[in-house]
């Protein structure tokens, strides 16, 4: 963010004035973001169709409720990641912070016997703290958030090992209120919260002053500064938010697995960034949508589940995943162009 000097104004792959006028403008008008991601939704539908054909058991209510119950942790992390990327930063520490939060949750619940609400707050609190530190260091010394959060990735992971003594902790049904599927719906409260947060994230981004500042800072930090708005507090806030959401993901993760795994979330940052970028958010900041990132999450999750379900071998899984990621983005690019040329 700071220290990731925004590429100079010319950097946006600048098309003709006319092209620029045509570019849909996510987030200002109505459900622009959702309309924007029709290309991705197409990819998602194709994937589901494909797996429904190749596996007789894929297209079922059970599949979708299990998927819904698997994804809350990734989904809320992706909300934070989207906002951080839009502001021109990056947060590599999400996976580790999630694990650290989970570790604290496990220890406070089982070893220290804290009441559940207190333990949950501790988990989110740890996330807030980690995010705050990320933000403050990034802003204070204007060093790239890539480095700061990479450092935090290591530190939080170390912390998770210390807290759990590098052991999995079985938590049991204490968090069933969060993770267990609800009777009729089949989905867990965690999923409902995650879905709510995706919507809230989109609203935050498009309808609040804070969200507009994020976009502005990610587009042209210097111009924002010149206009008299201090970018630093906004940046610290968005990293803190990302940390808090990673902490929340820790809760979801523990609730879902009923146990704390100090190795949870290794490499999660890459999946999260991939989902966000598949959703069309720019790594350079200034442009993106939370809802589209969520579609990115769905693509990744469906792909993983489908490949496992058809019993694909590890090499096949890898190659297909790679191809789908690239294809999704190409299809999306095509769709935009096609729409533009109409």
């Amino acid at each position, binding site marked *: 963010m700071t220290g990731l000097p925004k590429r100079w104004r010319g950097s946006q792959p600048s098309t003709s004035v006319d092209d620029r006028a045509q570019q849909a403008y996510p987030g200002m008008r109505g459900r622009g973001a959702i309309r924007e991601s029709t290309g991705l939704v197409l990819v998602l539908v194709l994937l589901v169709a494909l797996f429904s054909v190749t596996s007789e058991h894929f297209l079922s209510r059970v599949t979708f409720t299990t998927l819904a119950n698997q994804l809350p942790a990734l989904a809320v992390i992706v909300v934070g990641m989207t906002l951080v990327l839009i502001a021109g930063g990056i947060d590599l520490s999400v996976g580790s912070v999630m694990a650290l939060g989970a570790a604290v949750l496990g220890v406070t619940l089982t070893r220290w016997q804290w009441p559940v609400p207190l333990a949950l707050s501790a988990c989110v609190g740890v996330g807030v703290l980690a995010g705050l530190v990320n933000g403050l260091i990034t802003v204070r010394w204007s060093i790239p958030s890539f480095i700061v959060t990479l450092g935090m990735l290591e530190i939080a992971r170390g912390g998770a*090992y210390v807290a759990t003594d590098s052991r999995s902790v079985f938590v049991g049904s204490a968090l069933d209120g969060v993770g267990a599927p609800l009777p009729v719906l089949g989905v867990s409260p965690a999923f409902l919260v995650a879905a709510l947060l995706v919507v809230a994230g989109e609203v935050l981004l498009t309808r609040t002053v804070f969200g507009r500042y994020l976009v502005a800072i990610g587009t042209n930090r210097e111009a924002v500064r010149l206009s008299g708005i201090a970018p630093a507090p906004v940046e610290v806030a968005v990293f803190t938010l990302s940390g808090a959401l990673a902490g929340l993901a820790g809760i979801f993760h523990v609730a879902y697995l009923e146990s704390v795994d100090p190795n949870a*979330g290794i490499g999660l940052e890459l999946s999260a960034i991939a989902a966000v970028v598949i959703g069309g958010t720019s790594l350079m900041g200034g442009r993106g949508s939370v809802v589209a990132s969520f579609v990115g999450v769905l693509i990744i999750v469906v792909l993983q*589940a489908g490949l496992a379900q058809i019993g694909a071998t590890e090499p096949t899984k890898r190659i297909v995943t790679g191809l789908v990621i690239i294809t999704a983005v190409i299809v999306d690019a095509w769709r935009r162009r096609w729409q533009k040329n109409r």
Partner: protein
Amino acid sequence: GQPTPPSNGSSAAESSSAGAAVRPRVALVMKSLANEFFVTMAEGAKQHQAAHQSEYDLIVNGIRNETDITQQVALVEQMVAQGVQAIVIAPADSRALVPALRRAQQHGVVVVNIDNKLDEATLADAGLRVPFVGPDNRAGARAVGEVIAKRLGRGDAVAILEGVPTAFNAQQRRLGFEDAMRAAGIRVAAVQGAQWEQDKANTVSAALLREHPDLKAILASNDSMALGAAAAVRQSARAGQVLVVGFDNIAAVRQLLDEGRILATADQHGDQLAVYGIEFALRLLRKEAAPEDRQTPVDVVTAR
């Protein structure tokens, strides 16, 4: 330096001033220290060293994840550069570690292989002998599999979760499970890898449960994966109908064992595994033993 003459600890402690110079240094090189199994192993080794301070010094190291072979090779080389007298290693890969260990032997370092056996053919190719101290993973897995077999009938379907496929013990456990199933006439409907990891095992198990509605059991090659599988079973709303077994007997599965959500696991006495290796290495240094394989016990553990 010269190996000290055989002694049973007490006498070596008296000559501690001179002992510092001659006390051998032993490096324990393990796989992922983020895996509880190896944490237990490391603790066992450290306790042993604390009780035998006068006999040897210990450096404990592990790698970041189960597959980072490069880092493990680098660790071996660094330990040689350090000038340790012995390396006790749980190799992350049964073949790729062989050349580094050969170089270590060429530098006069005593090498003992624990936990995961090095590949015989590769050892022969490289022209070296490394004694293996560890359990018979195939037999252990077969024993765990037999617990399941007793609860199922002929023709029932089960699935196996495999560890990192380049590890010999992963292959052995899979074979052991398959042995037991074949003997009981149970059908192995699917084998999928989950890299020893809880998260991966969870995703894979959830998919297996959907794809094979008739699945009666999931046999996980370690307990981390068993935890992931147990969570998937619960989420699948077929709780109680699908059995899970694991391997390692880590602390986290104890309650699940008692609740019956994990039927059985194998205790390969991880805390003692390194100790066996270290003791054997010390005896080799003292020239008290010949470099032969040593088998360590594996026990089936079920609900208390």
